């Protein structure tokens, strides 16, 4: 299968690599199918909508930020990143993780009921 967008050009993928989001993502409830684009050189992975390929979310592995971050069995937890041309302003959403189950090829986004994790957590610290 193929989709095309400005950022990645033509993207070819296997039907089996589609992640199905029964409830979509918050703010994008109507989008149900995504693929995960990753490359070794890049810090982020990209969740790209199949229905609307221009809609892309940068994701970052949450265990790299907090090794105690709540995970569900057989799921990887990712945070949605809000990019900025100034790295010090790049933030990640720790409150509403995206869980991807690579066995079932399913995904869901939840809101954690805790005050420990904010919606905007700066991703980088200045040295």
């Amino acid at each position, binding site marked *: 299968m193929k989709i095309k967008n400005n950022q990645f050009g033509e993207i070819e993928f296997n039907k089996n690599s589609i992640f199905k989001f029964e*409830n979509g993502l918050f703010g994008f409830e109507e989008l149900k199918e995504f693929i995960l684009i990753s490359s070794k050189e890049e810090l982020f992975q*990209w969740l790209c909508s199949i229905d609307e390929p221009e809609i892309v979310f940068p994701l970052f592995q949450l265990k790299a930020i907090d090794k105690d971050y709540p995970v569900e069995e057989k799921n990887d937890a990712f945070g949605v990143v809000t*990019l*900025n*041309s100034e790295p010090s302003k790049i933030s990640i959403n720790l409150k509403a993780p995206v869980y991807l189950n690579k066995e079932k090829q399913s995904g869901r986004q939840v*809101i954690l009921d805790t005050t420990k*994790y904010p*919606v905007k*957590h700066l991703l980088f*610290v200045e040295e």
Partner: protein
Amino acid sequence: MLILKRKIGEELKINSNIVLKVLSISDNQVKIGISAPSNVEVYRAELLDKVRTSIIEASQKSKEELAKLNKLKINKVEK
């Protein structure tokens, strides 16, 4: 909007499987107990709005030009 009066301990049923119970009332706070199947999502409205806004912003900014990030240090959550 449907408006109903309930006393402490009284319940409301939504469909046959969702129950809202008024647990306690103080000056300007009501404690509500909710029993619902696990696929029913219940969120504080203002928090849901905040999350939605953040995800929409993330999609809009996903095309920002990025500087070299590999040398930056990740801001870990403190214990």
